[in-house]
């Protein structure tokens, strides 16, 4: 089979040969491959831990984005209540963007979850194959002549070696994917910190002011207005505010 499958087989076999090349006589090969297998099993465990760590980082990113969505939504409501449709629009546009990112992050985290599960399964399968090899190695040592043992060993070791190479590949692919996701999430953080979204999102406002600061000022101003109106009502100097309250928890917020 000269195509894709053939090519892959050649690559993996080369890796296995590299693993087994070092030892000279059959008994040594047996011990050496077993030792190597145990060593690689540790690497697999470490690799799985790395995938879990990466996933946790992405989940933190997810939480941050969720908070961002809530914050932008609140800001949009506040801006609209103040008649600042331009600011409300900007906040909503940012919210849309954050939601889009959140969606793709959700998908990526779900993908990582399933990769993690399959890696754990593969690790346990590899462990049982290594155990199988250990048993077989004692039988081979006890029962076969050097020439026969050589053949048997190379069969068994190749079987385990292939399994190891395969788990290694699955692990590497999972890690490469988490790296890509983290790089992307990191780039988003930096963009946000640098305010790079503003140029695209501050449509129609004609303002170069930082939207957060302006919204914050609006909020504080509205809190002050609110308090003032409440105070006025208490003192019987005027009607209670008919606008939705933005700063107090006593009155229900209008949707």
């Amino acid at each position, binding site marked *: *089979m*000269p*195509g*894709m*499958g*053939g*090519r*892959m*087989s*050649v690559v*993996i076999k080369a890796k296995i040969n590299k693993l087994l090349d070092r030892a000279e006589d059959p008994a040594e090969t047996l011990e050496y491959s077993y030792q190597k297998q145990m060593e690689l099993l540790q690497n697999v465990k470490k690799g799985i831990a790395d995938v879990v760590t990466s996933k946790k980082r992405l989940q933190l990113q997810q939480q941050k984005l969720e908070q961002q969505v809530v914050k932008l939504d609140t800001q949009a409501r506040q801006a609209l209540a103040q008649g600042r449709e331009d600011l409300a629009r900007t906040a909503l546009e940012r919210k849309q963007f954050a939601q889009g990112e959140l969606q793709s992050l959700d998908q990526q985290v779900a993908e990582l979850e399933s990769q993690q599960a*399959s890696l754990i399964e*593969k690790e346990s*399968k590899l462990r*049982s*194959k290594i155990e*199988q*090899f250990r048993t*077989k190695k004692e039988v081979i040592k006890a029962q076969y002549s050097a020439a026969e043992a050589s053949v048997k060993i190379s*069969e*068994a070791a*190749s*079987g*385990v070696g*292939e399994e190891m190479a*395969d788990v290694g*590949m*699955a692990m590497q*692919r999972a890690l490469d994917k988490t790296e890509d996701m983290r790089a992307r999430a990191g780039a988003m953080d930096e963009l946000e910190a640098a305010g790079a979204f503003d140029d695209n999102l501050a449509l129609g406002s004609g303002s170069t002011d930082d939207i957060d600061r302006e919204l914050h000022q609006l909020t504080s101003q509205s809190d002050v207005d609110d308090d003032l109106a409440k105070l006025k009502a208490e003192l019987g100097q005027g009607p209670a505010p008919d606008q939705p309250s933005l700063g107090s928890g006593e009155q229900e917020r209008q949707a």
Partner: protein
Amino acid sequence: MIVRIATESQYRLPDDDAAELNELDNEVVSAVEAGNEDRFHEVFEQMLDLVRRAGQPLDEDELAESDVILPPPDTSFVEAAEEFTGEGLIPD
């Protein structure tokens, strides 16, 4: 014939199906060479299906070397193309 789907599992495939797999393999190669991404995904998917459907999964404790190893199911077109550059197809 023993076939492994990389990152997935090992299967024992009857000879008749192995012949079909070989044909599909050749088709995948031509799709990649022609730069036809849709066709690549279509045929590669057929290969994986064939092995999963017709193949018998190997027992957990069976230590066997595969005759053929298929690339991982999530192989991208770019990755597939890389397989066939440089020392890829030609020396085989």
